[in-house]
């Protein structure tokens, strides 16, 4: 008996949506095995990882707080990924967004004006865009691979933040701790649910998701993005300007990541710190794929990935499991997703290949 793959006549639409569910189930099973190997009760661990963190109102609010940057970045990345533009430097663009917005908050530390927050958000977007403009320029002008340049710039961005926070941006009264001053109230995002940390950034993320949906489904640019990803030759015959799309998708994804960065410093953190993000920019890559590069899917996937962060913390506290379980879980999920995606274009056949060849 032989297991083999047979191409489907047409890509399965249903499988596009079923594959993430299959991947989640397989990941749950695999992580139960992992917990068992780690010497803990699998069911107890799953409970601590996925149920406990969201069993309180406060926990649910935290879920949305963590999902905010993931959704924002995931939305931006999915635009580029659809056009086969691989921006994987979102972590760096997020960092630059945090720096740009944060510097503005510190520069106008004594100014109490309602215009400060919007200005910070715009500065964050510009920061992210500026960082993403470098790979866009290098790709369109010098044909340089954007995967490598955007990733290298992530390291540069993180080092830039480290330099700034150990130097010019350090709190003068902070006993030499590498932290900025706490932002003034006018520079902190308003809380939308009293008693929790849930801030207005979540609504901004949802708004950006709606904008992206309109762009992709209703706008000519969205159409061009999809065509260039699926059939580059057709896009070139149709006269779509590829370089313009490279610029657009990189600027949009960079801007979204920058916005996520400034929202982190102006929201849950409230100051500039050496580590603004626990790898949101990289996790958002998984969010984009798991969400099928579609805004609604990205929102759902962002929530699930946010849960893995909360679950990692919770499992660390209640079960004494290392926090790194989160990263393993996220990586496994992407593996299983990519594996299940084979079912979109192929079906599994059991039996020898001979029958098909004799009829062909």
């Amino acid at each position: 008996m032989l297991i083999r793959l047979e191409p489907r006549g047409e890509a399965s639409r249903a499988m596009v949506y079923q594959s993430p569910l299959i991947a989640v189930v397989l990941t749950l099973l695999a992580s139960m095995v992992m917990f068992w190997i780690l010497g803990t009760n699998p069911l107890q661990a799953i409970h601590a990882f996925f149920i406990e963190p969201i069993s309180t109102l406060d926990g649910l609010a935290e879920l949305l707080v963590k999902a905010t940057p993931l959704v924002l970045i995931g939305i931006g990345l999915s635009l580029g990924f659809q056009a086969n533009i691989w921006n994987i430097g979102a972590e760096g663009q997020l960092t630059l967004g945090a720096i740009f917005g944060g510097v503005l908050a510190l520069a106008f530390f004594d100014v109490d004006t309602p215009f400060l927050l919007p200005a910070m958000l715009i500065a964050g977007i510009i920061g992210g865009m500026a960082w993403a403009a470098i790979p866009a320029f290098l790709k369109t002008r010098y044909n340089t691979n954007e995967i490598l340049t955007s990733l290298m710039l992530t390291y540069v961005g993180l080092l830039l933040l480290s330099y700034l926070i150990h130097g010019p941006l350090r709190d003068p009264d902070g006993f030499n701790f590498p932290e900025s001053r706490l932002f003034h109230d006018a520079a902190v995002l308003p809380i939308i649910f009293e008693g929790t940390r849930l801030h207005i950034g979540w609504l901004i993320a949802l708004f950006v998701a709606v904008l992206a949906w309109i762009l992709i489904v209703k706008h000519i640019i969205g159409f061009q993005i999809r065509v260039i990803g699926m059939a580059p030759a057709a896009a070139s015959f149709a006269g779509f300007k590829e370089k313009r799309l490279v610029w657009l998708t990189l600027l949009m994804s960079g801007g979204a990541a920058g916005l996520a960065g400034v929202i982190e410093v102006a929201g849950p953190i409230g100051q500039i710190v050496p580590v603004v993000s626990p790898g949101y920019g990289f996790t958002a890559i998984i969010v984009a794929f798991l969400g099928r590069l579609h805004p609604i899917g990205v929102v759902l996937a962002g929530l699930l990935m946010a849960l893995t962060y909360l679950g990692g913390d919770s499992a660390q506290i209640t079960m004494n499991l290392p926090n790194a379980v989160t990263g393993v879980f996220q990586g496994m999920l992407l593996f299983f997703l990519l594996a299940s995606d084979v079912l979109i274009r192929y079906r599994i056949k059991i039996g020898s290949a001979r029958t098909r060849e004799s009829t062909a």
Partner: protein
Amino acid sequence: MNVDFIIPALLTIITASTPLVFAAIGEIVVEKSGVLNLGIEGMMIVGAIGAFAVAVTTGDPTLAILAGALSGMALAFIFGFLTLFLLSNQVATGLALTLFGIGFSALLGHNFVGQVFSGLPKLNIPGLSDLPGIGPLIFGQDVLVYLSVASAVLVTWFLSRTRWGLALRAVGENHNAAHSIGFSVTMIRLAAVLFGGAMAGLGGAYLSLAHTPLWVENMSAGRGWIALALVVFASWKPWRAFFGAYLFGGITIIQLHAQGFGVDVPSQILSMLPYLATIIVLVLISRDDTRARLNAPACLGRSFHASG
């Protein structure tokens, strides 16, 4: 500038370059077979913790090196299975491998933080190793450094002079043609991917056994990605990758010794140098579109399905 400075500087270059040599030469073999594995960083970091864990538990450097190679290979197998048998997107799978590798290594390394390993023993030939200058440089390295040099020579020979090297290149240039004359595209590619994994694992092992003999989360610090850039820089030629790696190793010298020369630049700015240099090198290499395309294996990144 005197000998007292030059010898330690050259030793630092060797230390900084060796992990890059392993990873880049492994990836050249992978890419020559038509597979683009972006997961070097993940395989490297898992190789680093695999080697370090075995080194600390057994104290045996040989076993540790072997464990590093096998850990990288195990991760490469996941990649090979997904991309070659389940035909998943190579770019996405490579990214997944890196994300998974970083998380998995942190989980494995949880209990090894703060432990120390004495480092790889240096080869010591009485007489030769004591020669002033070149003694420690040429006759006083550890086994992995010699292995990295040997791998550059052997891979060059394998790719250009052997039948299987030719088959591997054929599969990378035109998988349909290679398939039609009876080569198993999938198996040749799997072998190449596994070799690349073992090499990345060795690069990681060098990091945690010799470069800085301890375990720190994320200690590969983007070297896997720099190795990827080196492959492009080297136009897929092993000996050029070898010298490219040493060029990059040289940049770390500036980073380490600039402050010694009284250059007043913050350490973070100096640490950016390897990453900025990578970008500049990539720009210089890929500026010429036709040349880049001529050198790259024609089937790079494309899935192959026999009955499709």
